[in-house]
Structures are given as structure tokens and as C-alpha cells.
């Protein structure tokens, strides 16, 4: 069960949510929550503008898969990615596919740019000589071919890798069925 919890924690942190209550016992002692002071009453700023706002406490617990589904929904909404991947390409010319792909590319690129800041793991141009220093992290640098002896190693940078340095994913409201990544559309007459 710890594996499931670990995944849940991963996605919750990734999408800016609070950790699930079961995770608390894994926190270091000095980070354990104390008895919380009663929450400060938030001033409802819209009071002047709208007559009544129904403030409801979110009821359903957020499932960790919601984060992954929400990202897919974003890629579909902005870039129609799911439509594109689900459509058989047989019978379409490269030009037809290209025309659509351009828009899909633009939309999905926008999602990446708005929500994730990325940089290469290894600076430097690809296809040039690089040094793999002593004490490198094999999760960051994947060696291809035989590594003889101890680092530093010398080799050719084939792919500079990608690292997400900042995630700015949307905050997700509770109580929404995230499995609907694109709603059906009905145009009323």
C-alpha cells in the first residue's frame, strides 16, 4: 500500500495539492502537524457584486489520477491532442495531416509553455564531446555503451535531456468528474 500512497503523494505535490492524511506519519517529527488554529474567516470579496454566494466545502476526495487526466484534458482542449491521436491517418495526405498537425502542435506547445518550465539536463550542443563527471546521477545521465572503470567519462552528447524546473499546473477544484476529458458538444438550434 505504501507504493500507492507514494504515487498519490507524487501527483498531489505535482499538482499543488495537500498531502493525503495517511502520509502524515511519514513526515519528520518536527514537521508533524500540530493542532491547527481555527481557519481564519475569509472575507467574501464578491459581496458587493453578487447577491449570494453559496460557499460549499468540497465533499469528494481528490483522486491522484485527476492530475494526469486534467493534463490530458488541457492538451485536448488547447491542442485537440486526443482527437489527433485517436484518428486513423490512413487515406489522408501528408499535406492534410500537416495542416492539422500545425494547429495541434501550436495548442499543445502553448500548454507546455504555460504550465511547465523546462531546460536541458545537460547544457551544450548535441553531437559534441562532453564529460560525465565523477559522482553523476545515473537518473540524470543515461550512459549508452560500455562504461569502463570510474568516472569521469568522456562521450558524445546525443540527447541533452529535459528537466522540468518549475510546474505551474492549474489548481483543480474538487467535485468535478475528470474522466470527461472532453465533453460532448451539442449545438442548440
Amino acid at each position, binding site marked *: 500500500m505504501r507504493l500507492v500512497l507514494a504515487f498519490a503523494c507524487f501527483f498531489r505535490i505535482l499538482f499543488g495539492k495537500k498531502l493525503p492524511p495517511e502520509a502524515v506519519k511519514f513526515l519528520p517529527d518536527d514537521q508533524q502537524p500540530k493542532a491547527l488554529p481555527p481557519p481564519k474567516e*475569509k*472575507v*467574501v*470579496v*464578491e459581496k*458587493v*457584486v*453578487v447577491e449570494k*454566494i*453559496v*460557499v*460549499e466545502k468540497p465533499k469528494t476526495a481528490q483522486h491522484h489520477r485527476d492530475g494526469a487526466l*486534467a493534463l490530458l*484534458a*488541457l492538451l485536448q*482542449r488547447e491542442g*485537440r491532442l486526443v*482527437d*489527433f491521436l*485517436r*484518428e486513423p*491517418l490512413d487515406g*489522408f495526405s501528408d499535406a*492534410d*495531416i500537416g*495542416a*492539422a498537425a*500545425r*494547429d*495541434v502542435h501550436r495548442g499543445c506547445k502553448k500548454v507546455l509553455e*504555460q*504550465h511547465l518550465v523546462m531546460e536541458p539536463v545537460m547544457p551544450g550542443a548535441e553531437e559534441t564531446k562532453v564529460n560525465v563527471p565523477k559522482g553523476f546521477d545515473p537518473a540524470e545521465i543515461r550512459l549508452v555503451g560500455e562504461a569502463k572503470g570510474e568516472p569521469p567519462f568522456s562521450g558524445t552528447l546525443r540527447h541533452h535531456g529535459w528537466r522540468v524546473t518549475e510546474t*505551474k*499546473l*492549474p*489548481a*483543480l*477544484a474538487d*467535485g*468535478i468528474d*475528470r474522466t470527461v476529458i472532453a465533453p460532448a*458538444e451539442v*449545438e442548440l438550434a
Partner: protein
Amino acid sequence: MTKVLGIDLGTTNSAVAVAGDGEPAHAVPITQVTGPGETAERPTLPSFLLLPTDHEVPGSALQLPWSGPLKYVVGTYARDRGAELPHRLVSSAKSWLSNSGIDRTAQVLPFRGAQRASEVSSAPGEAALEIDGERVSPVNASARYLAHLRAAWDFANEDEPAGEQDVLITVPASFDPVARELTVAAAREAGFDKVTLLEEPQAAFYAYLAARGDAWRNDLAPGDIVLVCDVGGGTCDFSLIAISDEGGTLSLERIAVGDHILLGGDNMDLALSAIVQRDLGRPLDPMQQRALVQGCRRAKEQLLGDQPPKSVPVSILGRGSKLIGGTIKAEVTREAAEAMLVDGFFPKVEATARAERRKSVGLRELGLPYAHDPAITRHLADFLARSLGGKQPTHVLFNGGVMKAAKLQARVVELLRAWAGRDVKVLAGADLDLAVALGAAHYGEVRRGKGVRIRGGTARAYYIGIETAMPAIPGFAPPVKALCVAPQGLEEGSTVELPDDELAVVVGEVSEFRFFAAANRKDDKSGALVDADTDGLTELSPVEKQIEAEDRKTGDLVPVRLEAHVTEVGTLELWCVARDGHGRWKLEYSVRERE
């Protein structure tokens, strides 16, 4: 030390910048609903308000980190989802705020053609199906954008609530006193009790000053005149700032502002999409048309930018899940874009060109008074001729999303040089989308004594209409004289008293005065009397006041003197002061629709 919040309450996008925290003015990202049940930060808040029914968007999809489910949404999701629900979408609230053709405090938005609010609410039965749903006033819509900006700030800065900081809100230089007053009312409704107004072109200039630091003194010299050319999504706004030498230091004065011109980038995108659609030769449904307009906007930005390609493909993706099969392909060529956008909206014209004005026809569809002449350069030539009488600016500062296009900047500079017969330099400003908010934040610092201030005062001279006494002639209204109550350039915080005149108000009755403005009558001092039909005078909504009886008898005639006061906020107040010293009454701007 409190901070300064500069708020650009824009026609299509709003932005917030902050200063006074030891760093240079910087923009603040705004948390907003970006999709159903999704909130994220964006650099600006699209000025759109969506008022959906539960069937269209459930309240659970509209929650902000600081709220429960809402019945409305502003910002990105309002704009995007609103395109599919145009009957529930409020857009361009700011243009409605300055439209005297409607009652600006009545619930008329989303605007539905010629339907009046009264007719809508009184229609029962099946008609109600068509026209149900909430409607708001232009003031209330603006208030909701401001309330959102305030709530987003407060959520991120719990210890420094926005209401306790110095708040500056920008308005078009062309906003009349009523629209300024209504902007302040919207701010108050949003919980900003104390705000200061700043004209947008001035804010853009402050952003330039902030970005250049002291180096601006090398850019400009006494005698120079800077044109601020601000073309946004929906409006054109021109201002002139003169540089002079005052005791050895450079001083800045805003000497003229243009008219309110409803013409901007949205018109261009529509125009371009019209050509593409004609070439397609097939009908498009409203959603496809919207996709086409967006595609054309992107094409415009590429084709008018640096190193434009020969053509830009525009595709309208299939609406169903069959994406590739349903895609419509089109293309916008550079020639077509340049012919339509550069030569159509920025044609080469002479300095003597005049913008075509719409003749007043008997019946006009109720709605926004869009500019009749699409040529921005003609409006510009017209403005310069009226304001400078033959002189030409020496520098230009661009602002607004449209002016990001290198080709359009180049065309304006080319014309300014041709008109002046000499070089006209471009001042490098800040980010054209955020400059107004940044400049407003910087101005807040200037007000605290850190930096040079642009003097300006009232953009126009204001007049009260006075009926002249003459024998009645059937069929002729008695001629109206205009009495100058506030000369052009009246500074914030100053008051002018009019010399005693034979003016009187009747106790217990509503006294209504016709109200006029003039942009280019610098020589009229307060108390000057001119003919109301003099060229250059524009009539605004009237001002009025019901004088309560108190210790006087109803029907009594009270001799009064007029007083004009420009508040620190930046609004104009007109007062009637009883000559016997017993009582003073503030005249209210009438927001009712003008006949």
C-alpha cells in the same frame, strides 16, 4: 510602507503591476479560472464576464481558490467559453462605460441589439425563454473585473490587502467626466474605497520613464513633443506630451488628448478573416468563423512582424472528433495582409487628411458607436492638426498590442516623418501589453516624490449650457450659450470659482444643465461665454441636481455661483454655491441615455 498597485482596466485585457516594494514596478500574474474546475495564473485578466445558467456551466466548475462555486466567471475561461455562449457574455464593458447612448448604470449587458432592458424584463411567457439570464450594468461588469483583481491580490498577499495600498486605475485619456466618475464608482463597488485615476497614454509614458531611468533626459530636449500612439484591441487613444525647460530641469506636460475612437486590432482581425472567407468560397458556422478570426490574428502578428514569411497557413480544425478529415485549409498571403492591414487601416495620407465622421442619421441602431472611418492614420492626422495647428511631434511612443507589429510602427513613423519634413524618433517603451499597468505603478511612486511628473490637468475645457434670454419665436429654441466652468489643464486638487453671474436654481425642482466639452479651446478662461454651437464643442450627458427645500420655500429662486473642482482622484466636480452663503450642492452627472 504601503505598496502601489497600478491597474490597467482594459477593454479586452486587464493587468496589475506593483511598485513600492523596493523593486522596480513589475507585473503581477493573476489567478483565474482557465477551464472547468481549473484555476491557474495568467499575466493578464481578459476583461470578459460570463453569466451562464447551470445547464451551460455548472457552478462547481467555477470555483476560485478563495471562493465556493460561483454563478459567474471573469477572465480566460469567460472569454473562451463565452465565445460559445455569446448571449451570456459581457465584453468591452469599458466601451459601454463611455457610451452616452445608454443608461450606463442600467442592466443592459450582455447587450442584445435593439432590445431595451425595460422591454426584456416585461416580456412574459415564451419570450422569456429567449431572454432569460442575468444582466448587469457596464459599471457592475467593470466592478467585477476589479473585484477579481482585488481578491486575487488579497489571496496571494494576505498581510497586505489591496484595499490598503495606493491604488491607481487607468482610463482612456478620452474618457469624459461621467465615464471617469463611473470608473471610480465601479472601483468603490469592488471594495476599493480610495483610488486615483491616470490616463492610459500618460501611464505608457511613465512606463517609458521607469524603463529608461535618468537616461530619458538624453532622449528628449526642451521644445520636443512626444506623440503617444496607443492602439489596443478595441480603441485608439492619442496624446501629446510637450517637453520644456523649467529652471534648468526638463518638465513634462500633457498638452492634448484625442477623441474616443472605437477602432483597433479586433477590427483588423475581422477584416482579414473576411478576405480569407471570401477566398474559401464556402459558408462557415459561427464557431468556425471564430476559429478563423483567431487564426487570422496569429497570421497578422506573423505577417506584420519582423522577417515575415510569404504566407501563413490558417486551418480551421474539424469540429467533430474527426480532426484531420474535417479540417478546412486556408492561407493568408503577405500581400493580402499588407494591402488590408497596412494600407487599409494605416493608409498613406497627407497631414491635411481628416477622418470621416458619421453624419447623424435619424435612426441609428443602439450599440457601441464604432468609428466610421477605419483609417487610423487619418484619425491621427486629424488629431495632430487640431491639437498642434501645423506643428508636428518630434518623437513617438507606441503602446497597445496592435503596435507590436513592426510594419505598422514603420508606417506610422514614415508618415510622421513625411508630415514633419524631418526625422521623428521612436522612444523604446516597455512591454506593450503591460506598459500601462507598469506605468501606473510607477506613477504611484512619482506621487510619493520619486521621479518626474507629467503635468496635465483636465484634458478638455468644460462648459455649462445657459439659455439666453430673448423673446420667444415659434419653432425656434432660444439659443444656448456655453459658459466655461473648467478651463483646459485644470490641475488635480484645484478649484475654480466662477465670477458672479445671473444664475439661479429653483428650490424643490430638478435643475438640469446641458454640459459641453471642448478639446482644443485652451484660451477659454473660466467664465468665458461662447456659443454652444461653436465648432469644437461636444455635448455630453447633462448635469443635474434637485435642490431640497431645507430652510427655503419650494419654488424659490436661489441665486448661485458655479464652482469647478478637480479632485485628487482625477474626477471633475461641479458645485452650485448659494450666493447668500446658505448651502452648496454638487451637481450629479446624469447617466440616463441621451436623447
